[in-house]
């Protein structure tokens, strides 16, 4: 990889012509490796209990929030409602609370989701290797875990309390996942917490080292921009649309076959354009409140979503733009710990 200083200069001040050329390359690589297929998923929030004190996050423990955790039967109803919308790929999320949402709770959620979805993924607090292994055996296909920021001192500042304060435990979690046989791992940084050039550089380096050691894992990258909740005093570093586009373009050129996911943190217009340059997976019809799909008593969401289109509307948009919406891109071979990928 190029030195960090060079990357920063290129990202921030590279000539528009060079970036145009890079964008064309990214677009061609995306068509070559992903064709015109765009896979769809939806998040399902299981709980908003959180021990973390992250100033930028809606779930932060210091916020006066109605806390809620789905019971098993509520989970069933949420999954039923979500799968009725056509979604076959689910990403289940919790706050960072091992006490309120312990591994046993996650196992129960995975086992229930396994019956209704072809692809079951989790975005939860970092776990021990043995816990990941048990989740794999229960049928989890993928795990998403963002480092938030790779800037250690900034990380310490933003994550002062709870287990999340342990930078290294989080940083090494993807290795534990790979050793435990997790088939798909999504990495990312929360853009807006620290310097985007430095964080993206560290993210790419992290991915490269994981690819070398665990080549059989299907990796994905995600580039979420932080959206502070309304009452927050947190002041994010602005990451412009231009920078975000450049990051997506760079990821595609550096890692041609690695998937890139874009959530409803971004607005409809941006998401539609991003499909042309590198994104191959988007969420649809997302609700970020616990209980959001059944709307019985929805509790507060983690962030305000900026693309409110229903799954049907997203499908329509994709078709109009010449993309094939893919609901099923996975074959659950359930509970198999892959061999040969342990470096």
């Amino acid at each position, binding site marked *: 990889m190029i030195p960090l200083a060079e990357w920063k200069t290129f990202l921030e001040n590279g000539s528009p012509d060079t970036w145009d050329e890079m964008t064309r390359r990214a677009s061609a690589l995306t068509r070559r490796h*992903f064709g015109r297929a765009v896979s769809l998923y939806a998040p399902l929030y299981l709980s908003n209990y959180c021990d973390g004190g992250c100033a930028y996050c809606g779930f932060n423990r210091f916020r006066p929030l109605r806390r809620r955790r789905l019971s098993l039967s509520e989970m069933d109803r949420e999954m039923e409602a979500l799968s009725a919308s056509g979604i076959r790929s689910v990403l289940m999320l919790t706050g960072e609370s091992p006490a309120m949402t312990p591994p046993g709770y996650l196992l129960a959620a995975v086992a229930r989701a396994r019956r209704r979805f072809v692809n079951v993924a989790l975005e939860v607090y970092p776990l021990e290797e043995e816990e990941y292994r048990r989740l794999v055996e229960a049928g989890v296909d993928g795990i998403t875990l963002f480092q938030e920021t790779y800037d250690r001192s900034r990380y310490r500042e933003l994550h002062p309390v709870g287990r999340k304060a342990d930078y290294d435990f989080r940083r090494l979690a993807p290795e534990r996942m790979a050793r435990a046989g997790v088939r798909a791992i999504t990495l990312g940084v929360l853009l807006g917490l620290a310097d985007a050039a430095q964080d993206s550089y560290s993210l790419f380096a992290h991915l490269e080292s994981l*690819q070398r050691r665990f080549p059989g894992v299907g990796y994905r990258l995600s580039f979420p921009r932080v959206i502070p909740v309304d009452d927050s005093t947190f002041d994010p570093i602005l990451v412009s649309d231009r920078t975000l586009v450049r990051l997506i373009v760079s990821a595609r050129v550096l890692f041609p076959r690695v998937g890139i996911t874009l959530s409803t943190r971004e607005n409809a217009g941006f998401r539609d354009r991003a499909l042309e340059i590198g994104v191959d997976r988007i969420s649809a019809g997302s609700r970020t409140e616990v209980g959001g799909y059944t709307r019985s008593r929805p509790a507060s969401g983690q962030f305000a979503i900026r693309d409110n289109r229903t799954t049907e509307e997203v499908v329509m948009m994709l078709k109009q733009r010449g993309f094939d919406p893919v609901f099923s891109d996975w074959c659950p071979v359930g509970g198999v710990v892959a061999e040969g990928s342990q470096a």
Partner: protein
Amino acid sequence: MSYRFADEPLRIGGREIRNRFFLGTGKFGSKELMAETIAACGAEVVTIALRRAEPMSAPGSLLDFIPPGIIRMVNTSGARNAREAVRMARLAREAGMGNWIKVEVIDDGKYLLPDNTETIRATEILAGEGFVALPYMSPDLYVARNLVRAGAAALMPLGSLIGSGRGLKTADFIAIMLAETDLPVIVDAGIGRPSHAAEAMEMGAAAVLANTAIAAAEDPARAARAFALAVEAGRAAFLAGFLEERAEASASSPLDRLPFER
């Protein structure tokens, strides 16, 4: 075309195949476009990724867009070892998707190169269970021989990396496989242009499979037709038995002047 040259049909798994161009069904902009493309090139064999087939959801599935009578070869894309490939093949059969399996075992996300060892293992199990197993492989003589022993119905060596469109980078090794094994050899992956497909057929390949080059073309139906024509031309050229190319520039070698040489 009014004139059709005499050719034996390709025989695999008890079926007779006349069109030696096989089409992959992934990466198309829509299922309708895929169906149109199948019609345009007259493909008799298509590959389907089990993970995209949604066998559980009835209407609007990929399978509904593939006309009856066409051989559906289900690939085990997503399998990282023999066990997973075998499991997928069984799932496909249980879902009524037939018993033609492209055995694809990949445990490297960066290059997507097949794991030959696991592929041999999966092929052996699947052939034993009555599947028509067509292993996707990195071309290698020993692997080819092991696959023959394992009961493969045909061999599918890669021309170059999946999706690269770089053509027959592995031509020398495919040539050895063609010379030394009796099974049909179907060149798969890396075929970016009709000329690459023609080249493979001229060498003696039994068939060619392409997907990305067609699905990513501006006009997939026309691209597929071009491939089918190139495959037919390459096949005719192979049967016509052309003289080997003469290397004029190296004529200084005395061996080239032997009067009794062809």
